């Protein structure tokens, strides 16, 4: 980017393309029928297929959570026994993480929005993209078979030697997740190539939307970390099926080795789950503050910094597991370093709101809920990263609460912000703003009621994964359960207005939020090939001080001299330089 302008620029003749309002033809009706959906290579439709899948798994995981919370109303057994309880919490964790959180923003929202934000017609490898979805589907089928043929009761962490000794169906389950990992890797590869090669003319690295930077960081983690999970699960399968001693001490293995392998993937995986959420929040806060983002490079690079340092902190899951004190010290130090770029992001978002023109629409409301809940998640992470305190809090409800504040309060709120934000682009319909705000408030109240008491009982010493507990924690458990029910009500309302929007929602305009971002400069729903022209970018995606007309440029068809459009000459970096 430091190369002299003259040598790397070329002149392109552009004209303004105003997005068509309420198009008759768009990607949803370009092809019809079940077969067309199943064989589609349109990234938008694949995104929606993922969206449908993750909605289904979120529903299943949520119902399991309600089962757990209901059982925990009383200390002793009320309606399910310990074995069922152990299976249910395992499934809740495994489904929510591997089937919902990991693919949620990258595969569902990312697939839909990434090429639109790049001004591309599709991802770099559309067929590979469809293959990723089918690999995901095959993985889920294996897992469902595992659930119906014996279940699984190891917790989502599959710690050995318990997981090599239990009678439940660990083999199929881990194999399902092994397959699922490839879907994640392929999506990552696809996104990286797409971001490198398919940016529209003029879309240089310093004009990339922050959501793209976040997806880029996520994809790097997906490609580098997921193979380690695959190796680990494969070793676990080999141990169970062939009796090769890797992790099980009774046949010569080392159970702590499993924990190292597992967390080497699963800690970066936490960043696979949260970093794309940061991207969504950056987009939403800038759009609804109608203001240029504060600290563009700080936000973009902090995503990459988190992705990088995130690889080096896995040992903080093992402070009490018997690793050396020196290792614990190093891991604790690096863990605190991750806190810094995360804090920088929070402050940058706040600074973006400063002197903005803030419109508290549903996506913005979710973004603010995100800021509040994720900040709590971050601070409690500092608490857990601190060696002496972690010894007390490790494996208690404090960890459960922290994790839910980060994943549910962070990632799910970001997902909901993104879903409400891009909903008009997806379906060309608006939802009820009133009910959207109501359900956001209900979910916020329910969430805090469900998880704040868990911080308290965790600090008091309530261990996690407990079917039975001592009486002193009952009041906290009951509050938590009531909170979970309230949250469920919020999600039911959301399902209601979303379905209503699909069936009878008011038509959405091409750019209902007045955003400058490129995905809003095409019609809603998007055309089959995203743009009817080749977009040309001359401004950053958050340049709200520039007129809207400068964001709607595309290459003019120079062959046809009869049209009398206003034509402008602009300098864009050459295509060679971009890659």
């Amino acid at each position, binding site marked *: 980017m430091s190369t002299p302008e003259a040598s790397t620029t070329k002149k392109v003749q552009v004209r303004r393309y105003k997005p068509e309002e309420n198009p008759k033809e768009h990607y949803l009706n370009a092809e019809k029928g079940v077969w067309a959906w199943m064989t589609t290579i349109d990234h938008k439709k694949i995104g929606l297929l993922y969206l449908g899948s993750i909605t289904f798994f979120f529903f299943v995981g949520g119902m399991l959570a309600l089962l757990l919370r209901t059982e925990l109303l009383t200390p002793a057994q009320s309606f399910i026994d*310990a*074995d069922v309880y*152990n299976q249910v919490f395992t499934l809740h964790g495994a489904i929510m993480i591997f089937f919902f959180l990991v693919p949620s923003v990258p595969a569902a929202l990312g697939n839909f929005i990434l090429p639109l934000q790049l001004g591309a017609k599709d991802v770099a490898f559309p067929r590979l993209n469809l293959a990723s979805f089918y690999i995901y589907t095959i993985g889920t089928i294996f897992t469902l078979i595992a659930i119906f043929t014996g279940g699984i009761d190891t*917790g989502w962490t599959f*710690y050995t*030697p*318990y997981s090599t*000794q239990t009678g439940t169906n660990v083999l199929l389950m881990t194999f399902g997740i092994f397959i699922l990992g490839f879907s994640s890797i392929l999506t990552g590869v696809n996104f990286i190539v797409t971001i490198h090669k398919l940016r529209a003319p003029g879309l240089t690295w310093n004009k990339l939307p922050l959501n793209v930077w976040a997806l880029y960081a996520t994809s790097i983690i997906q490609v580098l970390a997921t193979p380690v999970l695959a190796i680990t699960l494969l070793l676990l399968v080999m141990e169970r099926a062939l009796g090769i001693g890797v992790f099980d*001490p009774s046949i010569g293995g080392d*159970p*702590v080795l499993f924990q190292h392998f597992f967390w080497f993937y699963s800690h970066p995986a936490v960043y696979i789950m949260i970093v794309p959420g940061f991207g969504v929040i950056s987009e939403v806060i800038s759009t609804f*503050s*109608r203001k*240029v983002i504060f*600290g*563009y490079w700080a936000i973009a690079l902090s995503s990459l910094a988190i992705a990088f340092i995130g690889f080096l902190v896995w040992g903080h899951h093992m402070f*009490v*597991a*018997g690793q050396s*004190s020196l290792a*614990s010290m190093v891991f*604790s130090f690096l863990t605190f370093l991750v*806190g*810094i770029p995360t*804090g*920088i992001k929070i*402050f940058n978002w*706040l*600074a973006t*709101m400063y*002197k*903005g*023109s*803030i*419109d*508290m629409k549903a996506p913005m409301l979710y973004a603010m809920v995100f*800021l*509040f809940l994720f*900040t709590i998640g971050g*601070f409690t992470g*500092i*608490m857990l990263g*601190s*060696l*002496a*305190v972690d*010894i*007390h809090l490790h*494996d208690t409800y404090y960890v459960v609460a922290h994790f839910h504040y980060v994943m549910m309060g962070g990632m799910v709120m970001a997902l909901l912000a993104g879903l409400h934000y891009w909903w008009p682009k997806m379906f060309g319909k608006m939802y009820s703003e009133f009910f959207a705000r109501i359900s956001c408030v209900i979910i916020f109240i329910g969430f805090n009621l469900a998880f704040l008491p868990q911080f308290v009982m965790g*600090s*008091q*010493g309530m*261990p996690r*994964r*407990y*079917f039975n507990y*001592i009486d002193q924690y009952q009041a906290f458990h009951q509050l938590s359960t009531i909170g979970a029910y309230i949250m469920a009500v919020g999600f039911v309302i959301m399902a209601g207005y979303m379905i209503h929007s699909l069936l009878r929602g008011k038509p959405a305009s091409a750019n209902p939020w*007045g955003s400058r971002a490129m995905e809003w400069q095409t019609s809603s729903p998007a055309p089959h090939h995203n743009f009817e022209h080749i977009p040309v970018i001359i401004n950053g995606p958050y340049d*709200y*001080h520039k007129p809207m007309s400068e964001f709607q440029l595309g290459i003019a068809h120079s062959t046809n001299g009869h049209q009398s459009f206003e034509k402008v000459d602009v300098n864009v970096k050459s295509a060679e330089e971009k890659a």
Partner: protein
Amino acid sequence: MNRLTEFMLPPAKSTTAGEVDALFHFINVTSIILLAGITFTIIYFAWKYRRRSEDDVTPVITHNSKLEITWSVIPLILVMIVFGWGLSGYMNLTTAPDDAYEVRVVAKSWLWEFHYQNGHVSVNELHVPVDRPVKLVMSSDDVIHSFFVPDYRIKRDVLPNRYTSVWFEAIETGESIIHCTEYCGRAHSDMNATVFVHTQEDFETWLESADAIDEDMPPAERGEALVTRSGCMACHSTDGSRMVGPTFQGLWMAERTMEDGEVVTADENYIRESILEPNARINEGYDPVMPSYQGTLSDRQIDDIIEYIKTLD
């Protein structure tokens, strides 16, 4: 703020708990102040800069180096304080004093055994003297468990293939609960034990009399005491109700069907085998999950338990 810490944490009953609590308190207070600031800012900005018209013009503020350095460096200093503080606390928690009284801990699914230096074994009860460092050298007979005493702020995983250790010094007599905090299967949440802290004299009296308490009693009563003390009741009822394992009631000389279809009469040899090699034969409908009591119970003690089971009809 002190009240919050007191509300959130269990009573501090070890010499090292105070330092952990102070750090917990510091992080909580700092976090709450920062969170309040951030929350206030969000709400204030959302109200103050609310959209007034669709034509609002916003200033172009792309960055501010001074501000950005400030909000990077201050948190960095804060987390480094937390890191150093946490590290020093951790070193105290992991370095046992040389004169510590040593107790060997064996974890099995799902009970805790405590082996004392005089050879005495107590199950699910840890007896220690007050004001004296106690070092626990721990290992597991099966899967990973974790030894956690909330009142002492100590926790350490108990592994099957190596020894781990943890130490504490109780500052007052009384009882504290021990939890298993590494998920270990069906009865994980029932794998609790109790620490009994005695004065030095009481502890010595207990240690000397622990094995002797049984001598004057009739064998059946001794057996009953052993069954209670050894944690059998966690999985076996004496009133006929079904728990993880079969009930003791009516067991004596009853005919039991095994998993492989074999019918066994519950005589002395069967009961002895069930205690020492519990997974040799499994009752129909139950899982092979009981740990062996080889080395925990002596032959004479098994005789007493058999006498006790005879009385449960």
